[in-house]
């Protein structure tokens, strides 16, 4: 046991037996948090930005880079708030990102690949691990939710594209197909058909008047960064609000039924 841990335990005042039990309780809570937020964050992401995340041929410069950080910021920011506010643990965003990452890869394998026969190349997910860790680090350094929102939130979005490009760049090589240019990602989406997902359903960049020589992805990232600042602020408060410890007093009748109060006097 490190000196710091000894000090923390001493200050906490917990008896030694309680320390052991509290550690067991820690692991139960870790298990519960992991399972719960694997489900909750993945569901949230699936139903807000799922198509962009599930398919390589949805990863465009205009929407994917914008909507994914904005959506994926939400619940992790709330977790970060609770972990920091009550426990001074700067791990909420990273934990959320790791849980999302694990849950996503499991379903890519068990769902899309094993059940749907889709290749893994169709569903390489983006990760928010880099931005999440940066945001947690900023929180630890500045110790202020406002500054974390401003710098950490912005960084979270700005790191999304460059941290994912190494794993996705290979899918944007140009290919000639039927006399036309396609990206490898377009080809993958085309070659492995999804009857319920026609090409036009993709909410992707369909042409702009100004493309600034292809740097639009950074414009989208920047815009995402601005939104993420506010998204972090809002979700920090939402996280704290949800973690309410309020009780609403029960009725006397109920309390009598569970023996918290003496039975009503016979009239």
């Amino acid at each position, binding site marked *: 046991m490190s000196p710091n841990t000894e000090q923390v335990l001493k200050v906490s*005042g*917990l*008896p*030694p*037996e*309680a320390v052991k*039990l*509290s550690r*067991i*309780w820690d692991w*139960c809570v870790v298990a*519960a948090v*992991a*399972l*719960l937020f*694997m*489900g*909750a964050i*993945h*569901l*949230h992401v699936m*139903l807000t930005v*799922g*198509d*962009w995340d*599930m398919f390589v041929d949805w990863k465009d410069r205009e929407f994917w880079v914008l909507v994914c950080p904005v959506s994926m910021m939400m*619940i992790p920011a709330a*977790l970060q708030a*609770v972990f920091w506010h*009550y426990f001074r643990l700067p791990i909420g965003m990273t934990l959320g990102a790791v849980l999302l990452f694990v*849950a*996503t890869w*499991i*379903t890519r394998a*068990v*769902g*899309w690949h*094993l*059940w*749907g026969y*889709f290749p893994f190349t169709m569903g390489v997910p983006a990760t928010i691990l880099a931005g999440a860790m940066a945001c947690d680090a900023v929180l630890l350094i500045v110790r202020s939710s406002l500054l974390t929102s401003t710098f950490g939130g912005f960084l979270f979005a700005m790191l999304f594209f460059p941290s994912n490009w190494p794993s996705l760049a290979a899918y944007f090589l140009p290919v000639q197909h039927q006399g036309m240019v396609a990206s490898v990602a377009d080809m993958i989406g085309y070659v492995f058909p999804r*009857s*319920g*997902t*026609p090409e036009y*359903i993709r909410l992707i960049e369909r042409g702009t008047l100004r493309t600034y020589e292809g740097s639009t992805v950074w414009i989208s990232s920047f815009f995402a960064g601005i939104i993420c600042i506010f998204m972090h602020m809002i979700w920090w408060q939402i996280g704290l609000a*949800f*973690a*309410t*410890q*309020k*009780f*609403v*007093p*029960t009725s006397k009748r*109920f*309390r009598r039924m*569970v*023996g*918290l109060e003496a039975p009503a006097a016979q009239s």
Partner: protein
Amino acid sequence: MSTTTTVATPLAGAAAADIAADRKPGYYINFNLFALAMIVMAVMFAAYRVYQQVYAWNFGLDATTPEFDKYWMTLLRIEIPVLFGAGFLCWGYLWLTRDRNLAALKPKEELKRYFTFTLWLVTYTFAIYFIGSFFAEGDGVWHQTVIRDTPFTPSHNVLFYACIPTYIFFSVGGFMYAITRLPAFSRGISVAHVLAVLGPIFILPNLGFNEWGHAFWLTEEIFSHPLHWGFVVLGWNALALPGVALQMIQRMVPLFHEVFDKREAPAA
């Protein structure tokens, strides 16, 4: 709630062994029933996944065929009454066997019950993983690949009509356990716990809206469509469970002192 305990005098023989035993973690936390619940759930969900693998492509593509009725509608007719029925039985049992004298509950017993409550919550979250992640993306796999022709698709029959009653079993079960066996949770209803339980329960009525939308309004398959955002908002209620954990800490810490200390417990 703080109490002052007197200094314990040494006891001989069996009493001494009891004192030693009730200072061990094993006295307060028993994983047996929890392990059973987890194994049953794991096996059940694995079996569902295998069932989808074997019967979905062969018999699940066309809801008008007799084979679809045999393999998928029969499943529905069994799982809904069985899973919901099990829930009602469990919650009824928890209510009927409630502690009728919570005012007299001993600290050691109360502490044990907090660990049992914790395990109820862990089983709940295990079930939430399957609806929120595992089978949910399977729903995407199915509907973005084939043509939807019934609300009772092979993916829906597992995702909605197996996972939902399962997590409701544990969420309401945990709630019933808390309000019938833990004084803090009986004296007052935990707002966070209500949110964490009711939010996901309302996914069931939101299904009605979802199916209505798919039948009349949205004939194409975008997973992140606003039609689905009811589920998103209801899923946010998962954030209320940390509130429950904090409420537990606030009672368990004084309990630790009552059980293990020989001095007055500090307020939490």
